[in-house]
């Protein structure tokens, strides 16, 4: 398979990213469309602080080091966008991970949030829980936690397949409001009929931009749109036989 196309795509993406980063520094930050799955998380965090029970994050079993790494990193960045607010309210969320490589990275998110706040000793490392290696066992373990722990809201974001239905089933049974962001097709098939605000496929990667709204997150969404049009053009050219 010729390597020209991959190089072309990566170089164009890099150039677009740098160009948009410059524009963002001059203040021209693109506004992105609203995604209910992420937009209501800050308010949900406020309610959770009021009721005193934490928000439960299911980060899936995407191993860092495998080809699902970047889905897990996008999920971690979304949680990091909320970590400062959660720490300020004093209720640090519970995070369940399905792969051991996610344990250190998830714990670091909250440890640094407490450091930024100036009270590192209030960081409780057991709010990140490693549950089970096999995806289905992980989903069943998380479902059991959701059924029996005192939680206020449930957010599922990360790399999972149709076993995610076990978790949303348990949360729906307790009437807990849910937000789900999944990028794999079997998971989306199982999550669409679930009782949850859905962010599908590429929208999972818009999580950090919607929650933390930092310029380079919004900028990279603009780059995705630019590449989107280039690929549409490529498909049309190929259909017309010109490529």
């Amino acid at each position, binding site marked *: 398979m010729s390597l020209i196309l991959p190089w072309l795509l990566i170089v164009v993406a890099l150039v677009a990213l740098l160009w948009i980063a410059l524009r963002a520094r001059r203040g021209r930050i693109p506004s*992105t469309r609203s995604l209910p799955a992420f937009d209501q998380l800050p308010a949900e965090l406020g309610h959770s602080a009021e009721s005193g029970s934490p928000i439960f994050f299911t980060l899936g079993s995407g191993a860092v080091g495998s080809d699902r790494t970047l889905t897990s990193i996008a999920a971690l960045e979304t949680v990091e966008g909320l970590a400062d607010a959660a720490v300020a309210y004093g209720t640090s969320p519970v995070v369940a991970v399905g792969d051991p490589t996610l344990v250190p990275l998830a714990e670091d998110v909250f440890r640094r949030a407490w450091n930024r706040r100036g*009270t590192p000793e209030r960081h409780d490392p057991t709010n990140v829980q490693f549950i089970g290696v096999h995806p289905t066992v992980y989903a069943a373990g998380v479902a059991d936690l959701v059924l029996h722990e005192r939680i*206020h809201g449930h957010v599922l974001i990360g790399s999972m397949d149709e076993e995610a239905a076990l978790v949303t089933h348990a949360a729906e049974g307790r009437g807990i409001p849910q937000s789900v962001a999944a990028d794999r097709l*079997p998971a989306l098939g199982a999550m669409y009929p679930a009782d949850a605000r*859905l962010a599908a496929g590429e929208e999972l990667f818009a999580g950090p931009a919607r929650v933390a709204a930092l310029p380079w997150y919004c900028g990279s969404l603009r780059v995705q749109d630019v590449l989107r049009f280039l690929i549409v053009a490529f498909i049309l050219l190929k259909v017309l036989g010109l490529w």
Partner: protein
Amino acid sequence: MIYCPKCGTANRQGSKFCNECGSPLLATGLRCPMCGAMNPTGNLYCDRCHARLIPAERVPPEEEKPERVSPLKGISLPSVPVTEGGSGEKWLSELRAEAEEVAPLPEGEIPPWLAELTAPAGPTAPEVSPPEAAVPEWLAELEAPTVPAAPEVPPVEAAVPEWLAELEVPAGPAAPEAPPPEAAVPEWLAELEVPAGPAAPEAPPVETPVPEWLAELEVSPRPSPEAPVPPLAGVSAPPSGEIPDWLREFQAAPLVQEGSSAKLPPIALVDTAASAPAAPESVPPVLLEEETPIPPPGEIPDWLRAAAEEAPPELGGLVPAEIPEWLRALQPRAEAAVEEEPAETEGFLSGLRGLLPIGRGLDMPATAQPSLPRAPSPAAVARAELLQGLLSRPLMTSPAVEAREAYRPTGWALSRLLVGVILLGAILLPMLVRLSLFSPPVVPAVETLFAVVHQLPSGTSVLVAWEYGPAEADEMDRVAGPLIDHLLRQGARLVVVSTRPEGPVVAEALLASRLADPSERPRRIANLGYVPGQAAGVREVLGNLDGRTEVSTGLPAAQVEAIAGVHSVADVGMVVVLAAQPDDLRVWVEQVSAARPDVPIVAGVSARVELMSTPYLTAGQIRGIVAGLTGGAAYEAKLDTGWGREYEYYLNSLGLAQMAVAALAVIGALIFLVGGRKR
């Protein structure tokens, strides 16, 4: 509307970035801590209630201002600069954490939970002007979004709870350590004071600053000849400006030099046990003066009794309130006689008594004289019991926000039970009643696979990638069974490899059940076990097959007959991928076609992988595919290896179960279409 400082565009209230030029929008108003009204940033006093908005202290120069460490848009956060190496003792940082959670925010930005309390419950998420055509909720394209409009949580009542309004320190950089030199004195109290003299108090008050809520209870200590001081502690000054004459005679002599804003403890929590000098009769005692000997309870001081008997007519119908018994018991009184203390004669402390004489014993540490505890007087005991009674009463706090007990969605248990019973019934029915509703369908992909395997010359070695574990074994064993059986019948030698830890063990179980003659095992099958690392592991094993150890016998692979003559994927006649996940199929197809493009690849996959595997089939990378139980049943029907009876059971149960779920989906759709949406 907020006007952008850079391009002047009008943006909606609450937006953080200008819609036109994108520059960040500065804070647009200061919220008054007393009445909550929004004032322009430049105001010193609130337009509505004239409370002071910005404390009079020096505004910290630019570089001292704590730089905002995490510019989190959309979430207004009290950001605390990271103090290197921890700041002071632990209790101080905890105090700062609580104080910060209560203190209002520097730029007048209110955290959403509080804003909800003050502003009527409105949408708190920073709304970005969503373009008309782009869908608000991503899938609600033709109709209003189904997102439940009313948030489940009952909106907290909008008015600021009374205890919170008082607790708020006046707006302005709320650095709790720096004691505000003078708490903003409320309007009604300011009138009672002498119009503040130009000379600001040089000597900062000795005592610790009295918090706002406490200051209200105190009587202003600075009586001046014109503004008499209300006689009794705790009696709040009359709201109207002029002082009733009944009050004027109780005016105390000017005790404290004008202008000194010494703050005296509000309520006479006087430690009467200390040897306070007895004030001379001549100076009318003021209850709050520290040195005044307080008459023992029950025995009313003559000046009070005189005032009581006189009952001056011009009280305007006000019957002098007689002091209730429990309040009188609380009234402090002098325990022991104290000897005379000369008053100061000159200097700006003239007239004060009980001052520490300069020079004598100043260097001595202030040690309390240990007074032997005498039997407590009955009054002290009564007071103690009263206090104990007060303390033991249950704490009356605002009704705790009980954890929002999750409501159970309607009909949850019923629909769960209904689905469970119907599903299990559909699966068990074919076991009780012998049904032959469903027969194996004719699947084109299985036809091509059968043909490819059929022309395999005898004795060729086949690499089998065993990519499923026990969780998927129930389905995959029925998919892979006929294929493995056919390969063994064709005389092929199997080399089994897996990138999942449980793969080899599951492979052993199926191979044992499908191999007709166990003694031929070493000649026909070599299980090379688990290879860690997805794509990298596959690449590594494709390059070096016989360098590994055979799992079932423990021998190095080179000595196993089944793998004789096979060093890498180049020496293999066919590659079979048994995948339960789409990723595994993609990894193996990519790596094998990269290592050896012409080798035929066939696949046995789970039903969930069928959707993702058809592109490979059409692209010709895979010669044939058997997918799901139906594929396995079709292959078994063609091969007829004697497992037909079990497949018939499975096929009928699965078919019935799928019909049941399809029926449930349609019934559910009708029920909930009519029954109404989620509340």
